[in-house]
């Protein structure tokens, strides 16, 4: 299995550990990734708050590059990139006139298009969970995790076509296949506040607090995420939230790929486990 790989800006910077752990896991399970050449920004939130055409042209320009390089499938691990790609494709797929307009702008006419995947989809569906089970090296059955999918990954369901919109399962299934117990909770798809972190910090503190509180109250040792923004809000703001709400969580926020990596025996340094603000050592030691 070989896929084009679109890391997006986060995975080259703040979410480097997501990038590294994903690459390491893919290598371990035999999935080949080829980073898209000349990739540009997906547009993220700023683009679609500025101009609809811009918000379409940016992701579609990337998809055009991918198609030109001969790929029909791309993995976009960042929930925001994934969302922008899927939405852009959905828009032009349903509106031929719009498609023509955007194709004019990006100077590329799509032939078959490019299918956009999230790594959760790849691991749980395209590859098959039994493969993960076969490759388990480390026993993480003592680590209780809640899977946090965030608000973007599955919504809107008709566009994302990925997992059960309101009660997604793919991350839980991946971790369970590795023998990691995942706990049921009510906050799988709640919003963490996302990019309001800088402009409306108090919203993020409240929403992320609710999520951390819920995770703690079901007895989780850690939260697994699949989105750089979720990770950033829950991890980097945790101390601030603890202070504000007079509580302690000390919940490490793992990218699910990091947990997969640990389980498959990938060395910790390859998974950049030390880049977290809430340190992961305590929890992981307990497991080993």
């Amino acid at each position, binding site marked *: 299995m070989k896929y084009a790989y679109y890391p997006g800006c986060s995975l080259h910077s703040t979410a480097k550990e997501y990038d590294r752990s994903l690459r390491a896991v893919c290598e371990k399970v035999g999935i080949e990734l080829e980073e898209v050449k000349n990739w540009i920004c997906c547009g993220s939130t700023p683009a679609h708050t500025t101009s609809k055409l811009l918000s379409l042209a940016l992701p579609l320009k990337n998809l055009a590059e991918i198609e030109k390089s001969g790929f029909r499938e791309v993995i976009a691990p960042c929930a925001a990139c994934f969302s922008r790609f899927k939405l852009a494709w959905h828009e032009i797929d349903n509106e031929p006139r719009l498609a023509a307009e955007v194709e004019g702008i990006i100077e590329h006419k799509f032939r078959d298009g490019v299918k956009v995947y999230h790594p959760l989809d790849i691991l749980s569906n395209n590859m098959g969970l039994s493969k993960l089970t076969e490759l388990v090296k480390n026993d993480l059955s003592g680590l209780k995790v809640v899977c946090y999918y965030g608000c973007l990954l599955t919504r809107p369901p008709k566009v994302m076509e990925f997992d*059960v*919109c*309101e*009660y997604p399962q793919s991350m839980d299934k991946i971790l369970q296949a590795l023998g990691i117990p995942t706990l*049921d*909770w*009510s*906050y799988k*798809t*709640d919003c963490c506040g996302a990019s309001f972190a800088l402009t409306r910090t108090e919203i993020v503190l409240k929403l992320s607090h609710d999520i951390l509180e*819920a995770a703690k*109250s*079901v*007895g989780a040792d850690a939260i697994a995420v699949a989105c750089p923004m979720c990770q950033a809000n829950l991890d980097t703001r945790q101390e601030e939230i603890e202070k504000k709400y007079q509580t302690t969580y000390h919940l490490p926020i793992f990218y699910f790929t990091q947990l997969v990596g640990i389980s498959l025996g990938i060395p910790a340094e390859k998974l950049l486990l030390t880049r977290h603000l809430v340190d992961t050592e305590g929890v992981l030691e307990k497991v080993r």
Partner: protein
Amino acid sequence: MPNNNKVGAALVVGGGVGGMQASLDLAEAGIKTYLLDRETAIGGVMVQLDKTFPTNDCAMCSIAPRLVNIGRHLNIEVLTNAEIEKVTGFAGNFNVTIKKRARYIDLSKCTGCAACVEKCPMEVDSEFDQELIKRKAIYRRYPQAIPSAFAIDKEGVSPCRTACPAGVNPHAYIALLRTGRIKEAHELIKKAMPFSGICGRVCHHPCETECYRGKLLDEPIAICSLKRYITDTIYSTQVAEEVEEEQPPTPTRTEKVAIIGAGPAGLTCANDLVSLGYKVTIFDSLPYAGGMVRRVIPRYRLSPELIDKEVGEVLTDSIKLRLNTAVGKDISFADLRKQFDAVFIAVGAQISRTLRDLPGIEHEGVILALPFLEEVNNSNKPPIGEKVVIIGGGNVALDVARTALRIGAKETNVVCLESWDEMLCHPWEREEAVEEGIKINNSLGPKRLIGENGEVKRVEFLEVASIFDAEGRFNPTYLPNTEKIFDCDTVVIATGQGCDLGFLDGALELTPAGTIKVDPITLETSSQGVFAGGDVVKGPASIVEAVGAGHETAISIDRYLSGKDLKEGRKPQVVVAPEPKTEGLPKKRGVATKRLPPETRKGNFEEVVLPLTEEEAIAEAERCLACAKCCECRECEKACEAKAINHEAEREEWVELNVGAVILAPGYELFDANVKGEFGYGRYPNVITSLEFERILSASGPFAGELLRPSDGTTPQKIAFIQCVGSREVEANYCSSVCCMYATKEAIIVKEHHPETDITIFFTDLRAFGKGFEAYYERAKKMGIKYIRCQPSSIKEVPGIKDLRIQYQNEAGEIVMEKFDLVILSCGLRPPSEAGELAEKFGLELNEFGFCQTGQFNPVETSREGIYAGGLFTGPKDIPETVIQGSAAAAKALSLLSTEKGTLLKEKTYPPEKDVRGEEPRIGVFVCHCGKNIGGVVDVPEVVEYAKTLPNVVYAESNLYTCSTDTAERIKQVIDEHNLNRLIVASCTPRTHEPLFQDTLREAGLNPYLFEMANIRDQCSWVHMHEPEEATKKARDLVRMAVAKSRLLEPLYPKFVSVNHDALVIGGGAAGMTAALELAEQGFETYLLEKESQLGGNLRRVKFLLNGESPQAKLESLIEEVQNHAKIHIYTGSEVLNFEGSVGNFRTEFKSNGDVHQINHGVVIVATGAQEYKPTEYLYGQDERVMTQLELEEKLTNGNIGAKAVVMIQCMGSREEPRVYCSRICCSQAIKNALKIKEKSPDTNVFVLYRDLRAYGFIEAYYRKARDKGVRFIRYELDEKPQVSPDNGRLKVSVHDPILGAKINISCDLLTLAAATIPRDGTKDLAQKLKLPLTGDGFFLEAHMKLRPVDFATDGIFLCGLAHSPKLIDESIAQASAAAARASTILSKQQIQLEAAISEVVDENCDGCAYCIDPCPYDALTLIEYMKDGAVKKTVEVDETACKGCGVCQATCPKQGIFVRNFRPDQLSAMANAALGIG
């Protein structure tokens, strides 16, 4: 029957309220009716409901008598567990093939006694109770079910059972063990497995391999260990209790059977044959019976005592056992064949194979496995050295190694060809061996044995290259130069076993492998009458296979000796149970096998594997997933005295029906709330569906009516309802119509029981559009139920306590997070799951939502002639509308088959009535528990005992439900046995149940009026539910009173009147015309009276419809049809002047265009319609730009309205004093007109100012369309009504928008008022003339809001259309057809039986004061004068056809001059005296 003939029979598909109503109407009007239901009982969903809105009547109490009517109806045949397979033919003559799934219980034999239920060990989710609790696999859907017979829920055979070669049923014995019935479990095992103790220890248990739990979830059930536990427990108690020995059956057959080999196969076969009455002789060369089991299995696995016990139990006196007798030596095989009629060869694979070609094999110290084991078992200690090498890797090799260790070997090496993973031994045996210190050496093949002085000293092995060759044959090859040497002093060869068949002398054909060749099914050898089985056929195999072969051979031998075909019907196809649901089940590992510690095993033969404890065994049994539901333990069969159970019934059977018409009423499916992950249904125990909540509220529900929440059984203090779950969304773009009201009802019921409960209903629009609903909603709000207009987006569960948090926006616009104890999802109604299949089979069209496609003017007609649809199948609707459609569909079928009425009917005959006059009263009293309804409050057994002490009571008993069909049978039996001549039932109310019990009396040959009822439920247990002692005392009083009256009862005899077959329909609108046509089509002369000068009524003003149908074209054709029908007589400009008579014989005087007419007729249909309210508000009548919706409709038809902006104000004159009802049609009128405006001039702005947008049913889609087209809907509150004022030549409408929290001013050119629908002028007058009741709102009041929506309380008079309440055109049409069907049930009869218990005048007491005349509600009394003793005597005369026996006259008479026949003054005095304890 020639194909062009019509058939006087109909099929109704679906036994809910709609299907039941259709069936009753059809059958009563003369059509033989088949009522089909998928379930095991009819009743549909209504029987699952607690109460019904808006009257809060008990659903079950309303419906139960109707169920019984169906169950008892001679001309309704109920087909349950059935579905449509195929349909051919055409309207009037269809052939329908029906598939019936087996019930496994004979309907004609089952008395519904429920004795089987107690015995059934299988608990499965109760569908009826929405899986909140369990029911048994043998079950009745609900206590009052019709048919009342039980059914067995069987889903094939569990895999553990199919896996057992011996045919043992682990599923059943595990179920019995779990329920503490170890003796029954043991008996069940023994039937298939005589050696259960042996098998419980050494079986290789293929059942566990197949176990679904192991395959799908975690680990298989430890079936083998459980069998051992059961057997050991029984054996240990047997010693203590000294159970009596069973007498062996005496031989009944003369034929003799020889069995060679006393191993498991031979013994099993002998055991089976003896029980069939054969004489059996077993030959064995060994000095003991038991075969290989006894000979070679080491004692640490199996004790000889156990073997002797189990073998001994088989060896009864009927078996001749000849030990030490080797066939071929002591007796020749040929002689044996001559002396015996049949022979079974079961000699096993008794010889150890050796390695003849292995260099050095001849050395001293090289021994064979089997002789070695045999010697040890014979308590000898064969000489072995300290270092033992065992060649071979099977179970025998391990047995040898472990035995060697126990008799002194210091070092044992097992060496085998196979790798660790390929080894042929059972893994658990190997595990034990390794524990004991045995070394296992894999992938090595023996090269040679090296000896010194003739004694073996070393074995040389080579590494294996391959074991099998390219063709898969055993042909090991070795890698050169890989020699490995083991020092030893003993070598045991354990490389397999073979059969010694020399004794056959070539008499039988053998296989290339050297076993006997047999037929795989019959086990017959190449020689007739000679059979072979077990290892001698299979090669070394297992005990279970040997036992299986023994059973099969016994069947073959019996057939052979009886001259029957050996093969016929053997090995039937087994349906394996489907995989059970494991989702969400917690993983739980099986019980760990406990063994003696390895160090204590050395040097002795103590049993290694330790038994399970009781706790372990039960816990393990509880892990069983109970696939297949019924386990076929057959305990029910033992319990059933009626012998009604037939486990062998064919799974499916096919029934062919020839019917003239089909009515489809398959109901609906509740929306699957699992789909809405955000609400956590299925994950959060305290989030439940509305139907689950109905069951929780129901007295017969899972918690016996206690309001408890599922997670912890506490009473919820705060409850939330979320409306529109699965309705009004993109996937289901319609409103489910009933949820607002059922949620309100459920909330009210909770409030009534627990007034302190805090209840919030989250809704979008509160759609209380039906008759009486608005007032009900107002009542709910007054009770403190909070209605919050918000659709919550998710529910969060609080971990641990499992409370639920809902975030919503409150009225002030604030976001609030509130915690609730219980959340109910008001799930929508989806098309029935079989809709698609039915549509395909019947060739019908479905609409865009998946419901049956029907039209506004033909609401129950499908796209195929002769096939009609009703109820939820045509769209979401409430109970009365479902009942209406049931009747309407029946009307259609009756019209189609009018010429065939009565052609296929049966008539009921009763036994001749016994004359009991002059006999001393002999009273029987039946006291009903009514489930918990009475039994939960009143001490029923005490009341029974008390009743027995009362004078003339000769018999008394209690029943769970006295109204059930089985109890009716019981009553008849008791009447007969005890020669009763009076009967009392102490139960619910005569209102619903008296006719039922009276019919039972008639069936028992007693006059029905010798019956008396004591109302100990409605008037006792229900009203005194918190005072059980007082209630019991009152119940005793009520029974005593009933007994006092009963002693004075006398037989009464009803009169019969002939029926006039003409009909009168009052009202010539759409409803009246439809009803008239429907009746005329059935052949009845019909008089149609219309007040106006022309027909058409309100429909004349309806110019277009939402769905595009053309009402005026339809009206025109309808009028034409009515006018041209020879049997319809139209009178326009008419008015009823006088009305008299009673059902079957009415007389009406009326005026028509000035002429007075008088007609006689059998029925009346009232279809007088309603009218639009003339508003006085908002400049109506002052400004021509202000108009009603109907006026706008007129204007829209005549051209463009030429307005830039139109405002519509809804609820004009509705939903507030003085009319606290919703006019139902105005919201859709507004949508319709708004869409028309948008169609004509898209730029016109349309604003609809509404309170709740009541676009119920499919109208919702048009509401959405209107929004899409830009129509603006703005809500207003009642206390902030819109204001209208003239504004610069336009109209200004100001309205406060509660969402914006601000006032909006709209400038418009046209203002439309949705004026209320109000009763037509003259309704009151007509009601008085016909003596019909009206509602507080002035509409006619039907007999029962839910179940009798077109009947009046007065027989023979029916109601339809707007005169009943505001409704849309399709609803009016359906109700009109329904009224015709109801009328037809009377008109189709030749005579009607009158009430016998009516008023009677005591002439000598009556002085003609006439006090009684006016109060009589039925106008049945007349004052007359006659000459008596030469003087004029005034007295009162009773019209027997009109009198209903209500007793009002009796109550008004000051002189005891009139009484109702079974409420005689002396009877009432007796009751009063009894109540006071006098006399």
